[in-house]
């Protein structure tokens, strides 16, 4: 505490200078995307770097007019949010059971859930394709939601479980003697108490699937189910060659939704990441 108060005058400037440099360094890829995205194709691949390129909206117009970019963006957002919702609905009760009830094989079940994450995706790719084909869900965002949810379910369950384990048992005992049943306890006591943890798990899940490519490509065969990550691949082949400025803009657009979510819940996120380490 004292050391923060002692920082005055010059010290503070140095601190801001260092933090600004670090911020610039972290944001560099994003700035670079924007710089490439808004310059003409002729200024992208050159022998000498161009520090102050000409502003060009060619790529910007192209991605919106030549491709259904809004649809891809919508597909991405819907599939990701849908999958996170599915994860939370399944993981919260599972984590509650794993952290609170005593039964035989509890640890084994917990490990089994985690082990689903250890499998190489290629092993299940073909079965999943057939599964969704038989269900008639190929090329829909519903299938994407389910696959994304499956990818993250184990990790979300484990994160939430560890937060639940940290909640004092007394809290539940109190609620029980106050007259609450299991579901009320879960809904009114546990979930609010670990909300930062749930948010943390949700954000980590989103980050994991925003760039998902393999299963998306497998399931999506038309723009109906294309997401931003698959859309990126549109600009690498074909008669036009690799369209770098369009790729940069699409990559930037794919980054924006998660970025906005993280900004919105920043407070909870930092609390969630440190919770458990510091006694509340």
């Amino acid at each position, binding site marked *: 505490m004292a050391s923060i108060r002692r920082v005055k005058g010059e010290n503070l400037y140095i601190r801001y200078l260092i933090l600004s440099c670090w911020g610039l360094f972290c944001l560099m890829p994003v700035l670079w995307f924007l710089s490439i995205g808004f310059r003409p194709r002729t200024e992208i691949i050159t022998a000498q770097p161009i520090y102050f390129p000409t502003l060009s909206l060619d790529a910007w117009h192209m991605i919106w007019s030549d491709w259904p970019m809004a649809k891809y963006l919508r597909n991405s957002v819907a599939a990701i949010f849908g999958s996170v919702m599915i994860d939370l609905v399944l993981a919260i009760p599972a984590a509650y059971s794993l952290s609170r009830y005593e039964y035989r094989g509890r640890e084994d079940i917990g490990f089994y859930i985690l082990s689903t994450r250890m499998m190489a995706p290629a092993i299940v790719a073909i079965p999943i394709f057939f599964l969704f084909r038989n269900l008639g869900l190929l090329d829909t965002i519903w299938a994407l939601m389910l696959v994304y949810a499956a990818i993250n379910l184990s990790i979300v369950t484990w994160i939430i479980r560890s937060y639940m384990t940290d909640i004092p048992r007394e809290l539940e005992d109190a609620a029980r003697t*106050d007259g609450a049943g299991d579901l009320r306890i879960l809904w009114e006591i546990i979930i609010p108490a670990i909300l930062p943890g749930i948010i943390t798990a949700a954000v980590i899940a989103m980050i994991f699937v925003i760039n998902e490519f393999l299963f998306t490509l497998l399931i999506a065969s038309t723009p109906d189910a294309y997401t931003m990550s698959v859309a990126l691949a549109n600009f690498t082949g074909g008669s036009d060659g690799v369209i770098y400025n369009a790729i940069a803009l699409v990559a930037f657009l794919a980054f924006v939704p998660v970025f906005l979510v993280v900004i919105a819940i920043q407070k909870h996120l930092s609390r969630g990441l440190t919770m458990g380490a510091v006694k509340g």
Partner: protein
Amino acid sequence: MAQIELKGVSKRWGAVWGVRKVDIEIADKELLVLLGPSGCGKTTTMRMIAGLEDPSEGEITFDGEVMNAVDARDRDVAMVFQGYALYPNMSIYENIRFPLRMRNVPKDKQDELVRRAAKMVELSDYLNRKPGALSGGQRQRAALARAIVREPQIFLMDEPLSNLDAQLRQAMRVQIKYIQRELQITTVYVTHDQIEAMTLADRIVVMQGGAVQQVGTPDEIYSDPANTFVASFIGAPPMNLIDGMIKDGNFVADHVEVPDVGIKTTGQIRLGIRPEDCAVVSSAEQRHNMKGDVYGVEPTGDMTVLTLRVGEKNLEIKADRDYRSELGVQENVVFDTNRLYFFDSQSGERVR
């Protein structure tokens, strides 16, 4: 308003006994304290009364009705926990209202009851705060308000004061006792603090190793202990225990002799004497029962705790407030022979 009975109640986890065949009857409106060191089974006993733990054997009844199969939330008990267990996301108002909401008390009645309970524990000005913004004492009072708000049949308090500092603890003790008398609710109070037990209880149950050692009023527990465990657990400093022999009706031990103790048995025995029933005599010629060298002198203001090295043992004596001495000085001590206790040296049971 309820009378509680535990009949042969045990709790076992595999081969480990938490509580072993406990029989306790708790009268309506009584404040009963379960007292014992940590791990003695007192909290487990209370949790079984609350319904948070199922007994492995035996029966628990409220007003003659068997409660074993009744869920905690249907037992109409309210519990106060050591760690307060306030719901961190709710305001103090919402915390106190929670049990009313769970029991579907009419909405307009809820507000009135919450405010009344808050007033009883002097928290009316803090109702909008979150538990995190309150001090330890205020949190404890909030937990108390949550317990009293719906006037349950039974109060259960699990070491509610042990996280508070000494001064606050004394004030809260008085408040708890006052509220309990006012509301006339049967209360079971768990503590390891003998002062709390002595000051609060109508009756004390002393427990050790999962079993009841003695049940009695604070006076009975203090002046008529059933065995060496109870004798040495209650009292600060604890009762002095001296191993010796009965010879020709006299008690004899290393540096200790008490004539005509009136015990019929002979052979090995353990003598118990409380520190306040010993007195230092000023000259060696006077009649005395024990000799020892001064090992420690601790003035506490209202008295001086004198520790004497007697043979291989340290024994404590409550001496006059202005008693002072140097280490190593030999002192002679006389016992109040009306207040001697004898215990079997093997079993520790009282010998009368």
